[in-house]
């Protein structure tokens, strides 16, 4: 389809080469191709543009506001260094899962199996180290390898078999959960047994005190994972390819990116992060229960969505997921300290999810 009308056919050879007759009128028309003078914007449109450029701003503002509001309501008890560090501890496992989830959501996928992989891997390392007497470092190494493999299995089905990520991971969620029950015999491993046989498994439960705050190694691990992923996603070619795939997979492919390979790598990395999360979860919970974190899959998606990462892929910052997880933690802690029934905490989180997605849709409508 052409936008220019065809000129009347001229008999004989075309004489002059250059712009066609119908274009002579162009000389009189304005010559600028496209200027970038900032159009006058209403304050609302200005905000929309700002958010489009910095998508992490929404969760940052919500986090700051919610800390402020709960600080005013619950006062000292909420604002104490101890309570703030407790929030960090409480969100650390879901935060790590959200980091893995973010990688996949950035490729326009979704992973319903992250928590299932994590729990399965904590059972694997626990069972190996405590029941079977494998040296703890070896048991952990095995769980990292298997976690990566589990993620890779998801990735292969998504990239090579072209199955929808939602369906693939819905399937593997069930598969991993069943394997977990089978391998653990539906039995928990008690805290004392871990202490006796392999205290290394509870490494991330250790903590130190700074100015009244109680910082666990697990909380630090979560922050380190986010920092490393931020670097990888924003400062390496591979990270930019992850964004490009989520943005427009066909375009990325034509631009020379091996999209299938990168997708498999993304899922495998997510599986690896889940396995690290498994180690941290043993420290956080103290024991190893095959029934734990059953809602972790959806909680990680909640953190990612509240963090402003678009479920349509390619947009948002991984740091958003950290803020998303923290917002959930702050709400839960604040509402509890304010004496509000647990059901209203769930109610509030529900609205947060819907509002976050509504804001994402609104930001995406911004045009040139």
């Amino acid at each position, binding site marked *: *389809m*052409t*936008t*220019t009308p*065809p*000129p009347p*056919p*001229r*008999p*004989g*050879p*075309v004489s002059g*080469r*250059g*712009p*066609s007759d*119908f*274009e002579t009128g*162009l000389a009189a*028309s304005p010559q*600028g*191709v*496209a*200027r*970038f003078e900032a159009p006058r914007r209403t304050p609302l449109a200005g905000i929309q543009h700002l958010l489009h450029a910095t998508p992490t701003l929404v969760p940052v503002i919500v986090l700051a506001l919610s800390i402020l509001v709960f600080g005013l309501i619950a006062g000292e008890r909420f604002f104490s260094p101890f309570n703030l560090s407790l929030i960090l501890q409480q969100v650390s496992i879901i935060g790590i899962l959200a980091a893995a989830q973010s990688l996949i959501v950035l490729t326009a996928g979704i992973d319903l199996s992250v928590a299932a992989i994590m729990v399965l891997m904590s059972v694997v390392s626990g069972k190996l180290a405590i029941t079977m007497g494998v040296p703890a470092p070896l048991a952990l190494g095995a769980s990292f390898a298997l976690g990566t493999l589990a993620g890779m299995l998801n990735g292969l089905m998504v990239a090579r078999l072209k199955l929808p990520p939602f369906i693939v991971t819905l399937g593997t969620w069930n598969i991993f959960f069943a394997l977990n029950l089978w391998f653990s015999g539906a039995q928990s491993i008690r805290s004392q047994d871990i202490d006796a046989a392999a205290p290394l498994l509870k490494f991330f439960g250790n903590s130190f005190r700074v100015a009244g705050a109680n910082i666990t190694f697990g909380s630090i691990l979560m922050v380190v994972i986010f920092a490393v992923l931020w*670097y990888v996603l924003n*400062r*390496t*070619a*591979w990270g*930019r*390819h992850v*964004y*490009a795939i989520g*943005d*427009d997979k*066909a*375009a*990325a492919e*034509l*631009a*020379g*990116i*091996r999209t299938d390979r990168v997708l498999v790598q993304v899922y495998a990395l997510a599986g690896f992060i889940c396995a690290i999360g498994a180690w941290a979860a043993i420290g956080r919970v103290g024991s190893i229960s095959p029934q734990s974190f059953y809602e972790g899959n959806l909680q990680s998606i909640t953190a990612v969505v509240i963090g402003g990462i678009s479920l349509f892929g*390619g*947009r948002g910052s991984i740091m958003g997921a950290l803020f998303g997880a923290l917002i959930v933690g702050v709400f839960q802690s604040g509402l509890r300290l304010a004496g509000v029934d647990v059901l209203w905490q769930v109610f509030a989180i529900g609205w947060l999810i819907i509002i976050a997605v509504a804001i994402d849709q609104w930001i995406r409508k911004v*045009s*040139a």
Partner: protein
Amino acid sequence: MNREPILKARGLVKRYGRVTALDDCDFDLMPGEILAVIGDNGAGKSSLIKALSGAIAIDEGEITLDGQPVSFASPLAARDAGIETVYQTLALSPALSIVENMFMGREWRRPGLAGRWFRALDRDRMRAFARDKLSELGLMTIQNIDQPVETLSGGQRQGVAVARAAAFGSRVVILDEPTAALGVKESRRVLELILDVKSRGIPIILISHNMPHVFEVADRIHVHRLGRRLCVIDPREHSMSDAVAYMTGAKAPH
């Protein structure tokens, strides 16, 4: 024209089931020229272009680049050989910046430890290079090289895609319908851009339905019909209505 073609194809055949898209097709691109490829819908021009750019594997025939036989397993292989294609869809990632799009899939890393061990991108050097390439092609009305491609107009996006091809296409640049989605004024800019690229000595294959554009910039016109090359005409010696007549079979070339 005594010189050897830079890109040559002989006896290309491509079948899709019972449909023969390319039927013993020949093709020649001379160094430094703009060769337009025209043909009616379904004539097989896009199959020809895909065969040359590595997007499809041919069933029979031979392609030589600079006299060397080549066979491209993927667009990536063709690109590594120096054949850059600007697809009609442009293959740009809308949410990523102009620089990121120009370097997509061939990013530069920082020298030393940061690049080798931490795989850090050399963002300053990539920005400088992209800025150079865009201003060489007179595209610096684009002010901020870090702005997302989705904030650009259609013509500017086309400009970015052409600049990307020209910056890295060492041997051949293929343009698929570069003006099809553009208005009159933006088309004019893109045509100037094409002539600019040509003046750098890079030969161009231009696929277009727009006869005035083809007749304006092309040095030779490859008329494609029924899966093969019907003839190659000189735009200075033939009229547009001749070309359309050949293309549709209303008239036989002499």
